């Protein structure tokens, strides 16, 4: 004796609406969801926007001049206006080496006593440069700056003397997409992928596991609700939450950090939505496999959050990774999204890149959600 008082379709909509309303109320009332969805993105953005910089800026460099004269003063003066290096003059190499060892300076330039004489005589005048190679990346950057500044100085000097500084080969480089080489310009867009992974995969895996732990899932399972409705009831709210987190991040990136957005906003939204589905797919797949919040959290960190951080090209260049690791990155949705984000923000709508990335994301989302749906059963075993 089962009364079908409402048409089948209407009851399906009502069940889904009930699940959605429940989920939204829980999100609003649970401080931990809000923290992961909104507070954490803002903290990460501020940290990466202001705190972390992969540029060398105001790098302390020591200059030791054995015999000061006009030429050496001119040389020193050319470094004084650099925004990348901050020069300190030290009396002798002994103190300079000590400063290098004590991490007070990252490099030492040493002008020997015969520097000016050789220079004026037109002979080769070597400058000794000591670099702190502990942080190899910074050492390379500092060497580049020093070489650049030296070239600038030689050109100026030649111009002043009415000569043309004419080395046989000239490197005429221009930096595209990010002319000021601000690391913030590519870190902040890449961070959006990390933040969406956090909400889509980690938060979703945690909330489903919480339902198992609290026994609410068992109670849901014995109602007429279908497993598809249960999954959709999780997918939709966290999709919205993730897109909300994305929009907050984009707004902060544009207004607070002055990151340019050269591509179209609509493309950004569509591709983000695709990535969000893939992230939710990962989160729901984790939640199908484990029923404890602790395990779900661990699984989400190791399989989604860390790869999004380390293997997506967000901070570390994928091309410089060793072969097997580089192959591994192809399995990580965040890789395609970071590639898209950096293109969209800094280069604009480059369709071949967008097309490749969005199709990879669509395939991954379809596979992940497909497996989740297949493996979910309205049973406890």
């Amino acid at each position, binding site marked *: *004796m*089962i009364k079908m*008082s*409402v048409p089948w379709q209407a*009851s399906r909509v*009502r*069940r889904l*609406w*009930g*699940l959605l*309303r*429940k989920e939204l*109320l*829980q999100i609003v*009332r*649970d401080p931990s969801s809000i923290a992961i969805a909104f507070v954490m993105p803002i903290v990460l953005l501020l940290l990466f926007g202001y705190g972390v910089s992969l540029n060398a800026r105001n790098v302390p460099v020591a200059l030791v001049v054995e015999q000061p004269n006009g030429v050496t003063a001119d040389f020193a003066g050319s470094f004084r206006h650099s925004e990348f290096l901050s020069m300190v003059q030290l009396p002798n190499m002994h103190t300079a080496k000590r400063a290098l060892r004590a991490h007070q300076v990252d490099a030492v330039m040493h002008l020997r006593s015969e520097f000016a004489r050789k220079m004026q005589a037109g002979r080769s005048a070597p400058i000794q440069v000591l670099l702190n190679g502990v942080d190899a990346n910074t050492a390379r950057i500092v060497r580049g700056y020093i070489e650049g500044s030296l070239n600038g100085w030689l050109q100026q000097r030649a111009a002043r003397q009415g000569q043309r500084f004419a080395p046989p080969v000239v490197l005429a480089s221009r930096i595209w997409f990010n002319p000021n080489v601000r690391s913030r310009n590519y870190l902040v867009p890449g961070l959006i992928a990390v933040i969406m992974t956090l909400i889509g995969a980690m938060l979703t895996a945690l909330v489903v596991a919480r*339902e198992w732990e*609290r*026994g*609410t*899932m*068992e*109670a*849901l*399972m*014995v*109602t*007429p*609700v*279908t497993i598809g409705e249960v999954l959709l009831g999780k997918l939709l709210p966290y999709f919205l939450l993730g897109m909300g987190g994305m929009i907050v991040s984009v707004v902060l990136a544009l207004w607070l950090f002055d990151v340019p957005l050269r591509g179209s906003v609509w493309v950004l939204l569509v591709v983000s939505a695709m990535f969000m589905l893939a992230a939710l797919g990962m989160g729901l797949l984790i939640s199908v496999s484990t029923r404890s919040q602790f395990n779900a959290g661990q699984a989400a960190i190791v399989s989604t959050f860390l790869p999004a951080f380390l293997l997506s090209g967000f901070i570390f260049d994928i091309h410089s990774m060793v072969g097997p690791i580089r192959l591994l990155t192809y399995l990580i949705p965040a890789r395609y999204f970071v590639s898209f984000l950096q293109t969209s923000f800094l280069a604009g709508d480059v369709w071949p890149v967008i097309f490749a990335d969005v199709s990879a994301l669509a395939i991954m989302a379809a596979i992940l959600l497909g497996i989740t749906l297949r493996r979910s059963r*309205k*049973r*406890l*075993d």
Partner: protein
Amino acid sequence: MTPVKTQPILEAREVTRTFRSGQRCITALAAVDLVVLRDGVIGLIGPDGAGKTTFMRLAAGLLRPDSGEVWVQGLSTRDQALAIQSRIGYMPQRFGLYSDLTVRENLDLYADLQGVAPANRSTRYDVLMQMTGLGGVQQRLAGNLSGGMKQKLGLACTLIQPKELLLLDEPTVGVDPVSRRELWQIIDRLVEEEQITVLLSTAYMDEAERCRYVYVLHNGYVLSHGEPQALCSRMQGCGYAARAPGVHRRALQGYLVRASGVLDAVIEREWLRVVTEPELSPERLKECAGVPSLELDPLPARFEDAFIAEFRAVGSRWQTTVSGWAPPQTSSEPETVIRVNALGRRFGDFHAVRDLSFEVNRGEIFGLLGANGAGKSTTFRMLCGLLPPSSGELSVAGADLRRASAAARARIGYVSQSFALYGQLTVTQNLRFFANVYNLRGDRRRERIGWALDGFELRALANVDAEDLSLGFKQRLALAAALLHQPEILFLDEPTSGVDPLARREFWQLINALAECGVTVLVTTHFMEEADYCDRLVIMAGGQLLALGTPESIKQQVAGGRSALPSMEEAFIALVESPQREVG
């Protein structure tokens, strides 16, 4: 289709279900046959681990049987689970209430999920609110309800769409006696007014007598089934109220459990309830017991007697020993070992315990009784020095354990509600760990671990991981670990919750023996009948002391001069419902 009384609404044939746990294969149900007719409340009775929850889940289509078949209203749970789930109501043991949602929002959710049309809701809500008495707290978050209210709300959510069959998995576990009585009133009303058939599982023997028909489960087998009265009547004439003037109840119990032909001897009210084998005459019993002054009065049989008789036939008897226990120097004068004065504890605005004062003497069994949330566990944690009090003072063995030295702490033993064992360590490894913690070394360590393995019948399980033990054995192990260093004071937090009646009896036998040796035992429980084992006790509700004294004096206080004393459960209900109690 018209309901026919003789047509089964639920039928299980030869149902077997096993679970894998690591390398071990556990049989939860073995070839169970069970038929539920459209006929009131059917009980599924059994101790923890008997397979009750597994059966409920099989019936709800949440699990598939390994072999055999379950039909609900003629539909097989194997392939028609979704259709079954729209026809039955099922309340899991921990009903899934959303604690972040209000009472009303929880109801709305289940109304949506069960497809209750909005137009029909308000009348249904009114009926349910009136039935459960939750009308006044509709805006309260479910997480802030008391245990009993949560169960009632869970029941209301299950009933939101009227169903013909209701599966209730241990609805009264962890619920105070007042709420338990109210839940049963609701269930009885449902059966009467809405002609619902209820399959209810429980570990409480007294609830079996409220069922129309019962199945007794043990280790996955149906031990017996029938109408509870019929099962009881087998034991008619075997029950006696035993008294012996001049002999302490605990000592008398010691004599009687050892007498041959005695199936059961438990402390009940002012006497001992003795159940014998049918062929044992009272005269013979008096001879066997060896207590000349023994007086026996016949008692009517009850369901628990039948249950214990069935279990004695299949289960082994646990013989605990406290031999080798060095009794502390006993003086004739009572010595106060625990002193609590005006103790209070706040959590934010919430007063978990307020103005609590009592004293415990050496060698006493002292009980803290109350429903969930009465403040028992909070009091306990303060006594053990795990939680600082907000106000008042306390001393245990002459010291405040929060500031006391390790030497003072070594004088107490503590068994927490969750047992605090290391699941991945074997029984022996757990014992060795706790022996090291208590600084037992060399021969003494070996001797104490040997004592624990033999005295608690753990020798056969010495190399089993603690997480694979049944609840009863986990309890034994936890108790053994807490007794390794021979403490003077033993703290037991809800030691018997979820443990079957046999294990509970054995547990109390051991506690009695320890008390005889001069060990002071402080125990919390929500089983009211266990109060009679205590020398003295306090009854707590809402963080406050309701009564303090011996079981008899508390009952007399409630009886108010009437000659017949109430049971402890009746006394508790009377105390809790007296006017000074705060609501909610």
